[in-house]
Each structure stands twice: as structure tokens, then as C-alpha cells.
């Protein structure tokens, strides 16, 4: 699968590495080339300095032939806009978007963008972890 990732932060860099190891063709974009230090040393994909809301930068990253586009920058709006460009201008079949704000996630989810809100997911996960019964072994150790 050909995947374009926008934003080489902790999540973007790690995801790029994971997909690359499995043999997918990955191109990752970031505004700052210093961010590419987060890519694993054996990363075999393409790392490009560029703005993912700019059509020319996306074309350079191979968006026209991509099977998937994933937006993982710190800015919700930037992610949403880039995903809409990928979906509606370049007709990328699969578009995933990180949106910290749950309300924005809801709105753009209803407008056809596949969105994740780490805020909602982590809050839920942490709550479940906290309220879960501790494993028997741990109880005895106390």
C-alpha cells in the first residue's frame, strides 16, 4: 500500500516506521526536517519537507497515486483541511485524521472524514484501566 503521512511527530514517525517494516511504501511530510530524527534509522521510505495543506507538496509526496493519507500534525484544523484536500481533490481512497477536539471530530466525521480523537480515546482507556480490578497476583503481593 502507498501511504502519505503528514506530520512526523512521535505518532507519525512511529507509524511510518511500522508501515515501512511491513513493506508498505511510505512518504512522510513535515515542515521541519529536524522532525525526521524520529524516524527509525532503517526507514526506507521518503521524508519530505513540506506543508501538507499545500497541493504542490502533496503531489511531490505522491498523493496522486496514494492508497491512504493520514494527518497527524498538532493542529486539528490543519489536519482536517489536509484530509479534505486528499479526499476531495486527489480522491485518495482512505483518509484518516487525528482531531484532538471531540466536537470537531464529531462534525467532520459526519462530513465524511474518518477521524480519531486521542482525547476521547485516552480518557476512556485510562478510566477503564484505573477502575479495572487489579490482577490477583498483585493483590496478594500487597
Amino acid at each position, binding site marked *: 500500500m502507498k501511504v502519505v503521512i503528514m506530520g512526523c511527530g512521535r505518532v507519525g514517525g512511529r507509524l511510518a516506521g511500522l508501515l515501512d517494516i511491513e513493506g508498505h511504501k511510505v512518504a512522510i511530510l513535515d515542515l521541519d526536517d529536524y522532525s525526521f530524527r524520529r524516524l527509525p534509522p532503517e526507514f526506507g521510505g521518503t521524508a519530505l519537507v513540506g506543508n501538507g*495543506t*499545500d*497541493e*504542490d507538496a502533496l503531489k511531490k509526496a505522491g498523493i496522486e497515486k496514494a492508497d491512504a493519507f493520514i494527518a497527524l500534525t498538532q*493542529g*486539528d*484544523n*490543519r489536519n*482536517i*483541511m489536509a484530509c*479534505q*484536500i486528499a479526499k*476531495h*481533490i486527489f480522491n485518495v481512497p482512505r483518509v484518516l485524521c487525528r482531531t484532538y*477536539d471531540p*466536537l*470537531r471530530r464529531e*462534525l*467532520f466525521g*459526519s*462530513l465524511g472524514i474518518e477521524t480519531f480523537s486521542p482525547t476521547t480515546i485516552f480518557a476512556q482507556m485510562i478510566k477503564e484501566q484505573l477502575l479495572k480490578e487489579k490482577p490477583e497476583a498483585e493483590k496478594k503481593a500487597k
Partner: protein
Amino acid sequence: MYIIIIGGGQVGYFLAKALLDEGHELLVLEKDAARTAFICNELGSVCVRGDGCEMATLEEAGAGRADMFVAVTGEDEDNLVSCQAAKHKFNVRRTVARVNNPNNETIFRKMGIDVAISSTSIILENIEEEVPTHPITHLLDIQEQGLEIVEVKIPPHSTTIGKTVKELPLPTGNTLSLVIRGQQKPFVPDEDTVLEAEDQIVAITTPESEEALGTALRGS
């Protein structure tokens, strides 16, 4: 009319001032505290500090009863998202956005923003028109119908001088609406109007056919 403006920079501030003079009710949402205070000092309490992309802020601002929503921040992504929220969450009838990167005009239109204004394109066009050899001057875009009003000047040695309008290979759907000739009173051309050198012709065209219109009127 109740109008909400997102972004209290230069554009937002002067727009608010102009709309207040016209007697509209309005609210400016601005992220920066100092800028908010400045606008309230100058224009009265029409500016509230807040993020125009936050649903809660928009709700408090009364987006549900706004007649018009204008996003003029310096960031295209913020303008796009706040206009989409206004349109789809609060059903605001008319949304207008400033587009900073001219490449983004397409995505704004595709996403249903009613009017997308690219300040960069406007400045470029204005400067281009000052170049004497520029063939077509854009006067007005009618975005909803995909039409534009342009002015074409007939050059002194054009091959079309002396021809009548019906002899010109005008692209279909194009209309010549006015001829401005020297000191004469401008007149509406008909199919027998004969072109003269230095005529300025105001025409209605489309972005796709404007080049063909230019060639038809100015010759090759």
C-alpha cells in the same frame, strides 16, 4: 443583519468598522487578548476573545441566529474549518472566507464555502492589469454562477478591427455587454457593431472560455 467575523486582524477590524457604519449587528471573535481590547476600545463592545473554530464559542456567539459568517484570519485552515462549522453545525446561510494561498480556492469552493476571496489573487490581478500589454482585465467574479465580468481592450493593429460582432468566433455562453469608445457615451453592442482600435469591451464570460474570448476579440 447579524454578522459574525472570525479574526480581528487588519481585515477583520476594517470590515467590522465598515459593517457597523452600515448599521449591522456584529460580533468579532479574536484569539488575542490585546487585539480584542484594542477593537473594543475603538469600536465599542463588539469583540469577544475566543477561538472561532470551537463549537462552544460559536454557540455562545449566537452562530445559530447569524445571517452571515465571515472568516478572515491569516490561516486558511482556520478559515475553512470555522466556515464549515458555521455552515453544517449552525446552518448559517451565507459563509465567506478569506483564502491566503490562491491554490486553496478550489478546496474552499468544493467544501461548500459560499464565497472564497483570495487576497493574493486580487493583488496579483490588480498589478497585472497595470502591465500595458495585459489582454484581459477581471472586473468582477460572480462565483455562484461561475461567471466573470471582464474588460478586453482592442489593440491598435488587431486583425479584428473593422469586423462586426457576428463575424467574431465568440465562445458560446459569452456576452458582449458594453463598448467604451474614446469620449463617446458607452453603448451596448449588437451583432452589427463594428470593432474599432482601442475599444474597451466589457463582456460576461467563464473562467474556461475567457482565453478564447480574448483571442476572438483581439485576433491572433
